[in-house]
Structures are given as structure tokens and as C-alpha cells.
């Protein structure tokens, strides 16, 4: 009985579909997209994308586990492609979070403290026309927001 059990265990990977080879890159896609579609809404997940990095690292792990299970040439090609996708998407998030995000113009181009706010009138979302200089006569928090978060 134990003999047949071990034979079953060693034979099993060569039979049927190697699900891990597909699960790895699928998890990687979820790990990358969920950052932009969901987790970036909260600073705790956004500022340092630790959760998405963990998911993507897990995806690479799953893809690595799929490798020894691949027996045929086609299976190895599939597992290899899956591993490539997982690693590539992890690399993409790292590039975005640790390089692209720091690409900003020289802060020296911004006006100095003490600069007077110019008299410019702009429309708010409810149609109200606001002269920023007039609003700045009181204490004012002025936030430049460029979308998404």
C-alpha cells in the first residue's frame, strides 16, 4: 500500500495539468492590478506597497514551485513562461514604486516661502468662482491635487 502510495505521488506531477504554472502568473496579475485599482486608495497600502509586493513575491514562489512539476518539454515551456511573467510583473511594481514615483521636477523651481499668492480666479466643482488671492487673506491650506489619489 505504501509502495503504491509513493508511486502515485511521484507519478502524479506528470499527469494532468500543472495548475501552479498558471496560478503563479495569474496571482501576479492580481498582485499588480489590485494596487492601482484598490489598495492605492489607502495610504497604509499605497505609500509603501508592501501588500502588493508580498502578493507578487508569492506569485514568484508559486511559479518556482511549478517548475519541478513540469515534466514534458511543453510543460517546462509553460512553467518557464509563467515564472517569467511573475518575475516581470514583480519587477514592474518595483520599478514603478522605487524609481518612477520619484521622478519629479527640481523642487528649486517652486516659488519660495514668503511669495504672495497671485490674484487668479478659478472655478470650483460647484461653479463658484474663487479668487485665490482673496481666499489667501485668511489662513489657507492650498493643495495641488493631480488626480487618482
Amino acid at each position, binding site marked *: 500500500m505504501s509502495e503504491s502510495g509513493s508511486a502515485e505521488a511521484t507519478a502524479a506531477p506528470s499527469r494532468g495539468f500543472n495548475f501552479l504554472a498558471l496560478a503563479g502568473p495569474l496571482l501576479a496579475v492580481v498582485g499588480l492590478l489590485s494596487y492601482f485599482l484598490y489598495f*492605492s*486608495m*489607502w*495610504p497604509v497600502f*499605497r*505609500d509603501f506597497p508592501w501588500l502588493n509586493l508580498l502578493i507578487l513575491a508569492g506569485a514568484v514562489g508559486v511559479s518556482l514551485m511549478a517548475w519541478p512539476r513540469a515534466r514534458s518539454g511543453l510543460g517546462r515551456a509553460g512553467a518557464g513562461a509563467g515564472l517569467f511573467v511573475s518575475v516581470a510583473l514583480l519587477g514592474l511594481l518595483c520599478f514603478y*514604486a522605487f524609481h518612477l*514615483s*520619484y*521622478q*519629479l*521636477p527640481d*523642487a528649486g*523651481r*517652486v*516659488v*519660495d*516661502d*514668503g*511669495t*504672495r*499668492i*497671485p490674484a*487668479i480666479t*478659478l*472655478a*470650483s*466643482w*460647484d*461653479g*463658484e468662482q*474663487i479668487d*485665490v*488671492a482673496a*481666499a*489667501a*487673506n*485668511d*489662513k*489657507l*491650506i*492650498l*493643495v*495641488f*491635487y*493631480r*488626480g487618482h*489619489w
Partner: protein
Amino acid sequence: MSELHGLQTQITEFEEAGARVIAVSPDPVEKNRTVAQRFDISYPILSDAELELTDALGLRHEGAGMEDYAPDVPRPATFIIQDGRIVWRDLTDNWRVRIKADDLLAALRDVTGT
């Protein structure tokens, strides 16, 4: 929670400290209205689509826009203004990371002595 929503959650505290909150975006008025309604924003979000105010303060970030029709956007920036002049700023070095409302409130109380 988005940056604008974060400010909204503390809007009473900002007002109690005597400060008005105004956001500026490069988007058209309609898009700002959508954002304001989605996050229940009560303060103004001004549309600086021509980047007039953005350029006046030296905030233009070339080529950072997502849409073809608006290639340039302001860099994320937060100012505290008193008596018409800038007295404090936060220019993040990472455009994903914006100042938290709590920290901004602390800076406001510190700088303006309220």
C-alpha cells in the same frame, strides 16, 4: 482613503484652527465635481486646466499627465498660506506619497500658532 477624502475627514479641525481648505486640480470642472461627489467633499476643488496658478507657483510637471490632451500636470504640493503669503510647504519627493491630514493639521497649528 484618498488624499482629498483624508482632508475632508478633518475639515472641522482645519476650520477650528481658522484655516480654509482649497484644492487645485488640472482637471475640468465636471471631473472635479465627480470627485467631490464621490468622496463627499465640501471644500472647493478649483479647476486649473490652463495651469495658470500652477505656473505662477512653479509647480508644472512636464509630461506627467495621463491624457494626451493634458500632458502637463502640477506636481503634488501642499501650502499653508497666511496673510496672502506662503509660510509653509510640503513638496513630496515621491508623487505617490502625499502628506497626511493629521501631519498637515499639526504643521498648521505649529506655523500659525493656533
